């Protein structure tokens, strides 16, 4: 059974079509990433799946239950970590967790035991009796995640789990999510506008742009659908014969999109590891010294550009406005 099924969701806010027919599905036990720039419709999708927002049309099932017809069954099955922290600042970490457990109908002993376990799991045991106002951004985020996990949900929604965190806290959060996915055998749907985050955490991703899913698949599959890896050769002293070197590379089998930038020759090849010896051999045979060579697999950045025809960073900036 799929943990999440989304079919043609549409939602309009006044003059913005936030969701324009979103469809995807998430398998049980999978970490699934919704990737897209700000304003693409990721959060609206998550808010619909967590029963906060009513869609105009379309259908969504979470843990087999329809989010519109049986919202309270869905709520019992899910944990939701919103983009904006839902931590009660004036309550301690423990109090935040106890209340959430109570709301989920857990008994006193049950909830106390679970809260101790979670405080340990997210590394907040020592801060548990402190009021959350004094927590760092990373600590609040970890508390948010613990709040989402109190009732041992089947499906966890993480909406932009690392936005606003510094790089160190972000790396720690990534480890946290990986650990939780394993320890709690959860289905996780995470949204992010960090390409590297989706690449690192998600087994499969759906790229969302302007209220639609443009492509869905594993990060690796999406990247290999592009035209291969980028090889960059830094030439040694070639006395202005760089263009000749580029032409040499251009003539090799499989190399395409060969460009030259000073002494840097860039080429796309199907497979970097096997192409490098050929390229270096050809250059060496023709007396071109090589200072350095690197290969780069296509990033999700390239994938985004390829499928939407738009640059991720500029789209992201636009979405913020």
């Amino acid at each position, binding site marked *: 059974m799929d943990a999440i099924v989304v079919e043609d969701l549409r939602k309009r806010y006044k003059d913005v079509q936030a969701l324009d027919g979103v469809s995807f599905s998430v398998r049980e036990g999978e970490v699934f990433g919704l990737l897209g720039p700000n304003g693409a419709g990721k959060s609206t999708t998550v808010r619909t799946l967590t029963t906060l927002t009513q869609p105009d049309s379309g259908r969504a099932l979470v843990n087999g239950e329809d989010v519109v017809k049986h919202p309270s069954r869905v709520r019992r099955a899910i944990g*939701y970590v919103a983009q904006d922290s839902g931590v009660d600042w004036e309550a301690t970490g423990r*109090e935040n967790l106890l209340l959430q457990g109570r709301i989920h109908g857990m008994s006193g002993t049950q909830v106390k035991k679970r809260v101790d376990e979670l405080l340990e799991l997210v590394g907040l045991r020592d801060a548990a009796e402190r009021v959350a106002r004094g927590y760092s951004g990373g600590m609040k985020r970890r508390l948010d995640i613990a709040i989402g996990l109190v009732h041992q949900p089947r499906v966890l929604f993480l909406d932009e789990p690392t936005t606003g965190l510094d790089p160190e806290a972000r790396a720690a959060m990534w480890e946290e999510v990986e650990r939780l996915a394993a320890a709690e055998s959860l289905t996780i749907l995470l949204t992010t506008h960090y390409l590297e985050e989706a690449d690192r955490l998600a087994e499969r991703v759906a790229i969302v742009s302007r209220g639609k899913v443009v492509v869905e698949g594993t990060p690796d599959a999406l990247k290999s659908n592009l035209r291969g890896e980028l090889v960059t050769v830094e030439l040694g002293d070639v006395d202005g014969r760089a263009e000749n070197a580029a032409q040499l590379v251009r003539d090799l089998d499989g190399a395409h999109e060969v460009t030259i930038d000073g002494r840097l020759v860039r080429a796309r090849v199907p497979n970097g590891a096997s192409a490098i010896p050929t390229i270096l051999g050809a250059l060496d045979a023709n007396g071109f010294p090589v200072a350095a060579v690197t290969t780069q697999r296509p990033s999700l950045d390239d994938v985004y550009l390829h499928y939407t025809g738009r640059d991720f960073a500029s789209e992201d900036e636009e979405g913020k406005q």
Partner: protein
Amino acid sequence: MTETLRHTGWMVVRQVRNLMREPIWVAMMIIQPMLWLVLYGQLFSKTGAQGPSKSSYVAFLLPGVVCMNAFFGGTWAGMAMISDLNRHVVDRFLAAPASRLAIVLSQVLRAGITATIQAMILLLVGLALGVRVHGGFPGWVVVLAAAALLAMVFAGFSNGIALLVRKEASMIATANFVGLPLMFLSSILVSIALMPGWIRAIAKFNPVDWGTRAARNGVVYGSGWGHASAYLGFLVLAAAVTSLFATWCFRAYQRSI
């Protein structure tokens, strides 16, 4: 139903506990009503504003200040809702199987509890100033009930507004707009007998005056329980109406997100 009650209980505990962590808020909650009592008590002591009542002005004023304090507290109750909205605590409850009614009711009840505690403190301060509750035990009950109900009437209204405007500045403006006029359109400071006819006519429909009259029967006269019960009954109805209004506004909020 029991779930709603249980959730309301947990949420009231949360709010009261959070407030108790604000020492300045607690201090103000205790000092402010005393300040009103002393200030107004002195200011109007020689004006005969208590009208035909034979009591001292302070005795006349005490139930008035209790009610003023309760309904002012109520008008500000929506600030806590705005803070919960801004901090996304409300959304967190909504994505969990929290009773929707409890989210609103807990705010209203909390205002009632706060007002009751303040009323008790004021009555004790009154005792120290030589103001006796003439109604004895029933008198105490009537005053405390009037305070609790008035706070809840206005907390329902205030939470409704909070859910509609969702901004502190608009909330503050509304609370100010409502608070002072309603105080002056009631017998909190001045006897009904001394009011111009048109204010007296309006006061009849002012919940603040219902509470004040009931509380005054308890403190000053120690009689008129029939009237007092009727006024308290009106306040129960008014509290139900404003709580319904707040619930309706909560649904509107849910639809808008």
